[in-house]
């Protein structure tokens, strides 16, 4: 796997399987990186199939105090671009969390890292963790960590930048509940996820217990073709995984965005699936479980139900109207 050092959010990555693909991959990653950030440097990694993406949030202050703030599982991806994240991971137990977490802290200490960082791993099917990289930035999926830790990670970044010591120790951090994030993108699932841009005349943003939505949308705004397709991060929390998942399904239903295509319908299909419910996650989840085909079926069913409901309503109304007219006239005035 070739990966631009300056990539992120799934951009600047190619999987190459032979020498021919290597040259092509090298050229396209270089070109993409230069277009996006004006420079290029490439990492080469071993590509593993049927893996999970599991990452650890880490924080280290300028006095050398280091903690990890648990893991996030971000296995639901498309072309290495994360779509849905959750914490805790269904395959990380207390022992693994502490063991891998302390490895991450040791690595941060060894290089004298400061501020927030994320150590990314691939977890193979046999349970082994392969280190990928440390991301030296706040991550898109940081809100799920905020939900289960009760911390404000941007405040933590500012405190560390101010030279303050971390106000807690590892043992003070307790994981509370379950959080899920869906990245609401402006794209058309059925057009190979092509960006969908333009004016958004109306929008309704979900809210409620355990529901958080970080978004730039407002009625009358525009989704620009010049930037990232991420319009909103929809995040839910629950005392149980199922409460969090149910809240997400309801929030996805409540999210109304007029004018552009979104990834919301796909997420409803994914979150409603048995595989997702059972935690059977892998980085090839969409392909492995035919999620896009299942989305098409769901939409067809929904359309049929809607038109049947419309016919039933029309029939009921016409019966009601007939009875009113007959009632008013005493005896039918028209035969």
């Amino acid at each position: 796997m070739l990966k631009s050092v300056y990539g992120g959010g799934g951009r600047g990555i190619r999987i190459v399987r032979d020498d021919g693909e290597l040259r092509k991959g090298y050229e396209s990653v270089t070109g993409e990186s230069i277009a996006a950030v004006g420079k290029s440097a490439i990492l080469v990694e071993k590509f593993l199939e049927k893996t999970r993406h599991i990452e650890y949030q880490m924080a280290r202050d300028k006095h050398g105090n280091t903690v990890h703030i648990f893991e996030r599982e971000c296995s639901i991806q498309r072309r290495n671009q994360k779509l849905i994240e959750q914490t805790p991971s269904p395959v990380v137990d207390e022992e693994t969390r502490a063991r891998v977490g302390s490895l991450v802290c040791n690595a941060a200490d060894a290089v004298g890292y400061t501020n927030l960082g994320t150590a990314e791993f691939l977890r193979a099917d046999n349970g082994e963790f392969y280190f990928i990289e440390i991301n030296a930035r706040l991550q898109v999926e940081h809100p799920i960590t905020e939900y289960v830790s009760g911390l404000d990670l941007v405040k933590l970044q500012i405190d560390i930048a101010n030279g303050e010591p971390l106000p807690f120790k590892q043992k003070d951090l307790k994981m509370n509940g379950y959080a899920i994030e869906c990245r609401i993108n402006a794209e058309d699932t059925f057009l190979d996820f092509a960006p969908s841009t333009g004016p958004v005349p109306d929008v309704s943003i979900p809210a409620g217990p355990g529901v958080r939505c970080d978004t730039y949308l407002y009625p009358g705004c525009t989704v620009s073709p010049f930037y990232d397709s991420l319009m909103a991060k929809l995040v839910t929390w629950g005392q149980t995984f199922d409460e969090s998942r149910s809240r997400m399904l309801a929030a996805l239903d409540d999210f109304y965005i007029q004018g552009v295509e979104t990834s919301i319908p796909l997420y409803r299909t994914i979150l409603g699936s048995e595989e997702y419910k059972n935690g059977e996650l892998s980085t090839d989840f969409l392909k492995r479980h035919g999620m896009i085909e299942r989305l098409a079926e769901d939409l067809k069913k929904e359309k049929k139900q809607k038109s049947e409901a419309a016919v039933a309503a029309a029939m009921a109304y016409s019966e009601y109207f007939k009875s009113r007219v007959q009632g008013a006239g005493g005896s039918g005035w028209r035969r």
Partner: protein
Amino acid sequence: MIEKVLIANRGEIALRVMRTCRALGIKTVAVYSDEDANSLHVKQATESYHIGEAAPAKSYLNQEKILDVMLSSGADAVHPGYGFLSENDDFARLCEKNKINFIGPSADSMNL
């Protein structure tokens, strides 16, 4: 202590960072391209400055321009959000050189 943060980003992450700054009583400086003149991050910041055309290379990646705004607005720190300049060690070094607190890892640890 950080008193005024320039947010070198746009969209939902710019708003996310501003939310915490406001809660902490820290002033915020937004930057925006032609395309983003009507965006929420421009309206919600304490101060906003136009930095160029829609294409990222001419606005959100324009380090010199963003540095100019940092110096002229009196921001003492910069939050890069994610994407754009967030993992650019040249930018982190430029901030260090100009005594602007880069809210993130040092330029050297980005290079590891």
